[in-house]
């Protein structure tokens, strides 16, 4: 990823993140979160993780935040637009941010400073040996392309098959639960 693209997207992300807090209007804040997510998706795509980046936009910007925005608009929050009162919420927010930064520094200081392997044709072709010859993944790697969608699918369904299935059941349970709860309220 060219470094200027990294700086562009991380700037977009940071501006979006700061704007979430700075705006008094909840709708503006929600849209800033969307901007932030789009910057994040740009970073993912810059790291050749096309699938993750696209899913970031599809799920978070396209579905989750739309519902957020929806709720905010329907609630029509008036109180939130007034100036924040009191010192306590501000202090708590800054405290939380500092706690996260400390944690981040802790994690980063323990991670060895590894350079990511280059994604050139040679290293990709070498990686093709790890997969069954003749499959789509091996063929794409030999061509010098990164089949990121196929690789994610392969990893999910071979190494993490059981957790993946359990996650699916969990989502199903959540869906059924929502239906049951909403039906109960209607009666």
């Amino acid at each position, binding site marked *: 990823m060219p470094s200027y693209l990294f700086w562009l997207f991380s700037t977009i992300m940071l501006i979006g993140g700061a704007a979430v807090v700075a705006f008094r209007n909840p709708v503006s804040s929600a849209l800033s979160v969307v901007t932030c997510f789009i910057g994040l998706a740009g970073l993912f795509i810059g790291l050749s993780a*096309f*699938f993750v980046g696209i899913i970031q*936009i*599809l799920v978070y*910007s396209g*579905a989750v935040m739309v519902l957020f925005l*929806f709720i905010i*608009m329907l609630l029509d929050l008036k109180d939130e637009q007034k100036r924040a009162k009191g010192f306590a919420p501000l202090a708590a927010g800054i405290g939380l941010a500092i706690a996260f930064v400390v944690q981040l520094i802790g994690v980063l200081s323990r991670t060895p400073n590894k350079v990511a392997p280059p994604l050139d044709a040679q290293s990709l072709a070498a990686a093709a040996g790890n997969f069954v010859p003749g499959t789509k993944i091996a063929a794409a790697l030999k061509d010098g392309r990164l089949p*990121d969608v196929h690789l994610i699918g392969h990893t999910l369904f071979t190494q993490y098959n059981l957790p993946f299935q359990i996650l699916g059941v969990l989502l199903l349970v959540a869906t059924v639960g929502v239906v049951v709860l909403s039906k109960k309220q209607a009666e």
Partner: protein
Amino acid sequence: MPDLLFQLAIILVKIVALTFCVVLPLVPISVYFERRFCAVIQDRVGPNRTGIPLTLLGFKKDFHFFGLIQPMADGVKLFLKEDFTPNYVRKAFYWLAPALTVAPALITVCVVPFGSPITLFGHKENLVIADLDVGPLFVFAVSSLTVYGITLAGWSSNSKYPLIGGVRSTAQMISYEIALGLSIIPVLLYFGELNLGKIVQHQADHGWLLLPLWQNGSLGLPDLQTALFWIPAVIAFLIFTISIFAETNRMPFDLPECETELVGGYHTEYSSMKFALFFMGEYAAMVIGSALIVTLFLGGWSLGFGLDKYIADFHIGGFHFGGLIHLGIFIAKLIAFILFFILVRWTVPRFRYDQLMKLGWVIFFEAALINVFLAALIIAAPELTAAIIGIGAVLLIAVTAAIIWVAKVSEEHPKPLRA
């Protein structure tokens, strides 16, 4: 080797040529088709006069291009109208909303393959702006951002009908995105590929998804697996096409702008070019939706019947221009599908909102899910034993019957809501 500047120039040329010279003109053309075609359906003539008014200069007859200039006249009219911003609207969002509806539709153009590669001066160039390996997902992701434009338009207008229109539209688009995404899973399973260019190439070589009648350039009946896969392919096609109608807010699903209930829907408070942008956004979404359907199910740029190899070989010296012929074929298919969109709009009456939601959640969602399993069973069948295939088929039928039964039972006694 082409250096960075050269590549950048090629990308820019592609963006300008494909987005602004191919897709954008399709918007006014489809408006023209819409007006002429609906006139034919309603036994009228439609706009056929706009042209060069030669009679003003003393000639005997006007020169009319069968009214083909009508969309241009409409555009000029919208440009020159007063751009009125009502008081009490939320200004920033009110101005942002029209742009947010048009931009995503035009961005999605970049993954659509318009034709086979063109070779010029020994340099091979694909007729696609960005040859992404996540094509259909990219289209879904970016077009899901259109919702923001419509929602914000509804909310920022600070008026009740636009708000209801915006809310309806958001609910509708999110609901049908699920059916849309699920319905193409069989297609993606079949191709094993998310790159739209390769999907089209595969269809050119092995027969279109809905017309698998040739194999490697020679006509012939498909093998058993491909023939069986035709069934889930048709189901996927139906669900996908109807969901695209709902996603683009077209008739019979245009409840967000249903005049009898909501004045004009989310764009009631908009005028002049801002209104035109919403209008353009709707038609651009229709064009892109048709392009996606043609690409996934109807062979994209391929002429079919094993003729694509010969077309790709056409050349004058070092200039292989077969890709341009393919571009023409693609646009012909696209326009044919747009005409189908228009035909549906002027023949099918509007749904009621609860019917719309029911169709999305109760029928399409389940049908798409079952279709995924059916397709998976057919694709995996050659590697399974007969017993497992049998068990799978029985399970599938049982699940289908159970779902149909549940849908019927839940329909029978609707309990009145008590406040």
